[in-house]
Structure formats: C-alpha cells, structure tokens
C-alpha cells in the first residue's frame, strides 16, 4: 500500500514538474508566439511520454491508453494554437 502511494506520488511529482516547466517556459516566451507554440508541443509530447511510462511501470499499458493520451495532447495543441495565433 505504502509502496503504491510512493509510486504514484513520485510519478505525479514528475507530471507536475513537466506541467510547471511548460507554464513557466510559456510565460517567459510571451514575446515570441512561435516559441510559445513550440513549448506547448514539447509539453504535450512530454505528457504522452509520461502517460506511457506511468502505465508501463504500473503494468496496465494498452494501445487504447496511448491513444487517449495522444488525443488529449492533440486537443491541447489545437486549442492553444487558436489562442496563440488568434
């Protein structure tokens, strides 16, 4: 049980770090929309990698899960593309 909590805490700490880094990069790149967009794409890719790694280590990785993470990442890229290059 404790091992399980430690596993999830570590993984979610990594996820929070990825997302925080994404937001900070985005903020500091505010004068450069193209670089902001690149930061969004990188963060989305890191999110997919995190999802795959997390489920792989959890032992329940499935193609459906990979597709789910890819679709959410794609949705975020599409959404922010519209907001950045409005």
């Amino acid at each position, binding site marked *: 049980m404790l091992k399980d909590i430690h596993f999830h805490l570590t993984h979610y700490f990594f996820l929070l770090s990825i997302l925080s880094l994404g937001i900070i990069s985005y903020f500091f790149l505010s004068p450069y929309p193209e670089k902001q967009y690149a930061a969004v794409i990188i963060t989305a890719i890191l999110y997919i990698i995190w999802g795959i790694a997390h489920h792989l280590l959890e032992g329940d990785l*499935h193609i459906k899960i990979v597709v789910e993470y890819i679709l959410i990442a794609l949705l975020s890229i599409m959404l922010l593309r519209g907001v950045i290059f409005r």
Partner: protein
Amino acid sequence: MFRFFQHHFIPHSSNNHKARALHPQAFLFYILLIFVVQVSLKTIRTTFPHILGFATDISVQNLLDLTNQKRSESGLGNLSLSPTLSAAAANKASDMFSKNYWAHIAPDGKTPWDFITGAGYRYIYAGENLAKNFNDSGGVVSAWMDSPTHKDNLLKKEYQEVGFAVVNGTLNGEETTLVVQFFGSSNSSTAPQEQVNILPTQQPQPTVIAQVLPTSIPLPIASNISPTTIAPTQVIISIIPRKEGGTNIRIASAQNIPLFNITTVSKITSLALIGFLLVVLGVDGIFIWRRRTIRVSGHNFAHMLFLVALIGIVYITGTGAIL
C-alpha cells in the same frame, strides 16, 4: 433524457463503463470542433473586422496625460510632447516590425539613441520604454509603473520631453499593437555634449551609458520623417495643435473597437471546452472510484492536472508585455 445524460456523462454498462464524452471518438469530435471554430473565427475576423477583431484603444494623448499624471503624483514636472521624439519612436516601431524583433537593440546593432539622433534630436538625457499587446493606454502606463526599472525611466526628473508611437502590425507572427515611448532632454547648443542613455533593465537601477558623440555626424531633419509613411497597418493619424502654438504635432493612435474582441472570444471558447472536459472527467472519476470499476483507461486525475495547466496557459496568453 436521463438515459442520454447517463450514456454520455456517467460510466455505465451502456458506454462500456466510461462516459461517452470521454471516448476516443468524442475527442476526435472535439478536435474537429476546435478546427471548425478556429476557421470560422478567422473567416469572420477577415470578412467582418468591425464585428470580430482586436480591440485596441491606445492613444498618444492618453499615454501623455497618464505619464504626466504619474509624474505629477511624484512631484515631478510635466513632459511636453516632442514631434521629433515621436518621429524617432515611429521609426523605431517601423524598424521592429520590418526586422521582426522585440528588443531595445535591433538585430543589426541599431540602438534607440540612433533613432533619436537620426530624427534630429540632440539629447543630453534619453530613455526608451516599450510595450505591446495592451488593449488600452491605462494598461500600458500601469504596467510600466509596476516595473521598477520602467517606473524609474518614467519618473526621471532629468527628462523634459517625450515622444510616442502607437502602431498596429504583425510581430513574430502575432498581430499586436506596439507602443514606443522615447524620453529626452534636448540641448539647443551645437557644441559637443555628454549624452546619457537610459534603458529599463532587470537590475534595480537602470544601466547608464555615457557617450560623447561627434558633432560632425549629419543629422536628418525631423520634419522629413512622417509616421504616416512608415506605419505598417491600421494607424490612425490625427493632428492636434501644439500647446505652445506654432507648428502642429502629429500623433498616432491605434483605435479599433469591434463588437467582439477576438482575444476574449478565443479564450472563452477554449476555457468553455476545458471546463466541460474537467467536469466530465471529474464526474467519471468519482463514479469509477466509488464503484471500484477496473477498466482499461488513462488516469482521469492526470488528464485533469493537464487541463488545469492548460487553463493557466490560456489565462496568461495575450497579456501585455513591456520591455
């Protein structure tokens, strides 16, 4: 009605124990929807700019009034609007758009002082503040006042005159309104003078560089440089009489007030979709957790964290920047 709601938003045997709104087909639908909405917004913006567009209401007169108001509040004298500094500021704005940069120093090494002297202004003290992406004059001056280095520049007692350029254009692929503010104290004598240039920096005190410029440099006459010929787009030029009488001062304003602001519309539509997904993921997660359902699926909590980060990013997009 309840069955429809249950099928789409609550994990149930009818939807393979996952809200239909979270199935891959639903996500593909959202992506398609985003694409259609974005194309529609762009089309409306291009065809009916008075209905949907960038809301900008920045005028030189307001910037001047607000700058002088802040100086008065600090017990400093008012700055007078200098047409020469305004021409220099317009040249700087034009240079930034044409060379696509956002900096005090141009990629070719051209400094703000080159623009000031190039416009024919012989200065003892000179300074520059830049701003972009603000909707109104108050926002620009407030942002400068909130930054210690820009505030120092704005409240420098040595300055006597100020010039502004407010120009709409596309910078780094982003449609924006650029504000250039040049400060100066002029010297009417032709003898060589020690000149002091001030830029806002990240340090508590602005960097001060003292220079001695040779008087043999030929300086162009300011009246030959017109902001109207160099502004990239949408610049409304108005002429107001100079308070001291005599010549007129050209001032530029960027005023575009459509029915709907494209920035607000983009943000609201994005936040609406993110909010919807957060609610559906939250409801789905609660049902799965309470029923202890085992299913092949990503973690709702991870998706929700990702979407919250998206909200943060949407929130900080399009806010004004100063330099």
